[in-house]
């Protein structure tokens, strides 16, 4: 009886060499990252781990990191989906400018983003009006963490959403229109489900960027223990007072949280069947 094997082209030794060369880079990169983590693990001691697990402030920072980054992802997706769709589907005057501005926060040095937010809310009339007259305070406030993370990471979500909508063939939308959908219906029943994977990928990037953000937070919201401290600023605070072991233990905690979150997203993302 014939054995069934996966389809693969006939390969000469040159082709094997080609694949081997690629794998060399894979191995070097993965090994480099793993070695760094292993080095951290060996550097910390049980006392540092205990400190991290029992510290009220670090627990608070962990909670702040998680909820602010989740809020940032939700807020980013709320903006990213319509902006991505508009940039993908509509040709309008000034589109190039909008496209460029959307990407601008990606190339902002993170510190500049924090500084810009600080200047806007503390030095301009409009910023002061929002803070003082409307009473929505951002500077040195937990809400500021979300705003800061949103500014720096929403571009990833928007860019991913645009690419995802670009990949949805317009003929699907056209057919939906002839089958009874309005423009809204076609978007909700066809475009959005078909772009969902790309949008989720953008959400993951946004979350990763937001979760690890440090520079602009220090400038815009500071790092007040029990109030605006997040894990990334905890690392900075601990290492600045000489607690290198604790700083590294917190960094490892961040890696563990990120791994758990990414695993959950991959598992859920891989099994979700989008129904129209």
């Amino acid at each position, binding site marked *: 009886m014939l054995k069934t094997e996966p389809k693969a082209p006939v390969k000469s030794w040159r082709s094997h060499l080609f694949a081997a060369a690629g794998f060399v880079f894979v191995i070097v990169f993965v090994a480099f990252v793993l070695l760094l983590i292993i080095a951290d693990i060996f550097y910390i001691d049980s006392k540092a781990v205990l400190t991290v697990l029992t510290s009220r402030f670090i627990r608070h920072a962990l909670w702040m990191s998680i909820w602010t980054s989740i809020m940032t992802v939700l807020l980013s997706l709320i903006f990213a989906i319509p902006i991505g769709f508009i940039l993908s589907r509509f040709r309008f005057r000034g589109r190039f400018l909008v496209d460029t501005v959307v990407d601008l926060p990606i190339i902002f040095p993170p510190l500049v983003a924090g500084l810009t937010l600080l200047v806007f809310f503390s030095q301009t009339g409009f910023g002061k009006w929002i803070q003082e007259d409307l009473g929505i305070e951002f500077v040195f406030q937990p809400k500021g963490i979300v705003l800061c993370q949103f500014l720096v990471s929403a571009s990833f979500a928007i860019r991913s959403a645009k690419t995802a909508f670009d990949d949805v063939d317009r003929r699907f939308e056209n057919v939906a229109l*002839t089958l009874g*959908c309005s423009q809204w219906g076609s978007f909700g029943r066809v475009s959005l*489900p078909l772009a969902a994977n790309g949008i989720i990928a953008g959400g993951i990037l946004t979350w990763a960027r937001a979760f690890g953000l440090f520079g602009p937070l220090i400038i815009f919201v500071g790092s007040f223990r029990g109030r605006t401290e997040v894990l990334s600023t905890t690392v900075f605070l601990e290492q600045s007072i000489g607690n290198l072991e604790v700083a590294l233990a917190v960094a490892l905690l961040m890696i563990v949280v990120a791994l758990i979150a990414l695993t959950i997203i991959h598992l859920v993302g891989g099994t979700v069947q989008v129904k129209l």
Partner: protein
Amino acid sequence: MIRAVRLSFSIGDFRLDQFNLEVAHGQYFVMLGPPGSGKTILLECLCGLARIASGQIYIDGKDVTNLEPRTRGIGYVPQDYALFPNLSVERNIGFGLRVRGYSRQVITSKVMQAAEMLGIVHLLKRSIYGLSGGEKQRVALARALVMQPKVLLLDEPVCALDEATRQDICAQLHSVQRQLGLTTIHVSHNLEETFSVADRAGILYQGNLQQVGSMNQLLREPRNEFVAHFMRCRNIFSGEVMAVKPADGSQPASTKFRAGGVDLVVPGKHKGQIKFIIRPENILLSGNPESGSVDNKLQVKLVRSRDCGNYIRIELNGPLNLVAHLSHAAFADLAAKPQSDLIAVLHPENIHVLPE
């Protein structure tokens, strides 16, 4: 019934200008044309996916020009079918019904009805991935038909299929269309496909409708050189009228003209410079110089012959360089070889003078 009146539309260098078309109730109309002639754009204008600059579109007498695609009562099957890849076959077919808010029982029953009509019941639970081209085509058709449209628009529905499947699908399209009495516009560039389904056909070129008629009319009486060429007639020549003989009692009027140095006769009255065609299957070949009528006999030499499956294609050199199609039996009887001298007989009624 669908009627387009003086439609105008332009995109880039392409334009439909003052375009008129009428397809009667229950008629199967095929719009033929080479790639880039505007067939797809025309369908998109008719179903409201492309906004026209001016003109009117009527469906069953109702002006739908400014209606959204969803309210026009049109079923549309685009090229490559555009089946939703994240839905099963069943959910693809029932998509429009769910949008319209039908109950689950009604959806199930209508989907089953459409699937039975097209013979795809066994596919209902399958994913779109892994379906063959013919199966996808049937699913896309079921998805459009389940909405009970007034007009069905098919954009190159079988162009990506192999020959055998194409014939099956065309037969099925024709039978379903007859069964439902559905007004249908089918876009294609393939003549065999058109012959198998069309009640009437039109030829579109650069946004202009060149001719509308039965396939026989398009084949035998093309209006201009483009139509003749598109209908695969290679024997297109120019001539100059020498004399016109008016009708006298039993004899109808005829025109004598000169082409390639020989005099030919054609029925009817013509004047000045003319262009004419001779269908390759209407050329009679003989090895006997005495055969045929006195008029329209040409001495030709066989250059080469090629077996095209259903017929033998023969290239002839002579006063007019002709291409003739002969059946295998007729070619065997002729017993001609390359460089054989032959007589080509062109019956006057088989010479068609192009009106344009």
